[in-house]
């Protein structure tokens, strides 16, 4: 594996039951790339991201994360230093203050004693304050998380990722539950932070418009296969129309 590969998949496949959810797939994502993953719902985007994140085991094939085989990551703590994930809201603990949700990004660095102590005397507080400042929520440090709006909660999740300091961020429909203006706002912030920190970003999106606006490379997935994998500039309207066209066997429930 070359040094520049953040993710490398070789013939990786996954099935639930008899049919392939993900057909054998080859994928190479370099460090620093901004990749959007688009496709109809049920195409396999979430499955693909979960495999990249190491949270689900592929049935076959090889996956390298940051140059090392995925299986060589001994524990969640090691994996957390390489890959961070953000999904549709609901990922935060609403009853805790914002501060502790952000500091949860430090858990892979902390032992259990320090984690407990942090509830009484917040540890590494300046790191959390700094991260919240960068997502524009410096005044919400002690607010109860469930009192924040959906957009603000996603920004808290971003602050947690900043504190976690992974090398790559995998985002699964990170703005799907926000209104268009908030969605653009939060996605712009995610991309800006990723670029400032020189990280890699792979994000599934249901908005082609947002994918075009913020990403350099678009990978389209349809029925568990790569439908196209192109630089954003080369993606045409015909590509998009074909991608979302209903095919036999897939009914009206496709959105």
């Amino acid at each position, binding site marked *: 594996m070359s040094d520049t590969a953040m993710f490398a998949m070789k013939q990786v496949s996954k099935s639930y039951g008899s049919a392939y959810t993900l057909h054998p797939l080859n994928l190479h994502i370099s460090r620093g790339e901004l990749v959007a993953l688009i496709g109809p719902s049920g195409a396999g985007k979430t499955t693909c991201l979960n495999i990249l994140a190491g949270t689900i085991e592929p049935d076959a094939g090889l996956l390298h994360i940051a140059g090392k085989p995925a299986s060589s990551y001994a524990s969640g703590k090691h994996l957390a230093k390489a*890959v961070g994930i953000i999904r549709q809201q*609901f990922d935060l*603990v609403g009853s*805790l203050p914002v501060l502790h949700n952000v500091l*949860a990004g430090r*858990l892979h660095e902390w032992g259990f004693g320090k984690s407990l102590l942090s509830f009484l005397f917040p540890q590494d507080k300046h790191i959390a304050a700094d991260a919240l400042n960068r997502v524009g929520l410096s005044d919400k440090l002690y607010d*109860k998380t469930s009192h924040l709006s959906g957009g603000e909660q996603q920004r808290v999740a971003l602050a*947690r990722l900043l504190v976690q300091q992974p090398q790559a961020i995998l985002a699964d429909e990170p703005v799907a539950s926000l209104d268009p203006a908030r969605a653009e706002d939060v996605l712009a912030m995610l991309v800006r932070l990723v670029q400032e920190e020189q990280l890699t970003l792979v994000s599934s999106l249901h908005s082609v418009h947002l994918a075009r606006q913020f990403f350099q490379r678009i990978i389209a997935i349809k029925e568990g296969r790569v439908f196209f994998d192109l630089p954003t500039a080369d993606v045409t309207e015909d590509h998009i129309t074909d991608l979302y066209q209903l095919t036999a066997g897939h009914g009206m429930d496709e959105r």
Partner: protein
Amino acid sequence: MSSKLLDFHKKNILTVLLSAVFIWSLFSVQWGPDLFHPGGQAALGQMMQGLLQPDWSPAILRLALSAAWTTLAYAVAGMSLAIVIALVFGVLASGVLASTRTARNVQVIGFRGALGFMRAIHELVWAWLFVAAIGLSPFAGIFAIAIPYGGILGRIFADMLQDVPEEPITALRAAGASRLQLLCYGYVPIAMADMLSYLMYRFECAIRSSAIMSFIGLGGLGFQIQLSLQDLRYDQVWTFLLFLIALVVLVDMWSQLLRKRLVA
């Protein structure tokens, strides 16, 4: 077709059956002048009289206050121990700390079984057992409350921990949290409000249990009520009962305050 029809009428049939059983049970009571014992009516009158004019003399008030304090102290001490039991057994019985599926099953079955044993036996029975074993000591009363209430709370805590939504937990795991860290940054804060409000409800129950417990000679409001009943001093009985009611109402007010702060 006919099975669907049967399904449809199942509830009605059950209702009719249960009503029939209830009506039949009324016939098995010997209705008649023997139902109240001869002095009953007079006693009932005296009780009512007592309710209208409880004994507010300073000596009785002092006695009631110290008895209420004893009852509260047993309940608080018993519940404190019950909380420790419930947290330890409840967390283990929920299986959230288990590393493998097998370990999880063993833990869940083992600790749920232990919790079931604790709460299957009523606190009065535990009290008799402990009095027989260690005599009339405060510890007998405290343990007699702690064990069954630990069993009840532990079981509910385990259920609440298992019902925690999985998204925040998955996110914490992806951020590199260990199982113990998941517990204190995920499971417990998420379930905390429910756990506390159930705990407060059970605390009320523990006060009643503690009062009853004193009938077997452990002191407190129940013991005073028993003494006054023997003397047929219904006015004093009511004084003590009103203190018991006041205790429960106070705890209820406190729990509502706590709940408001937690849920807000």
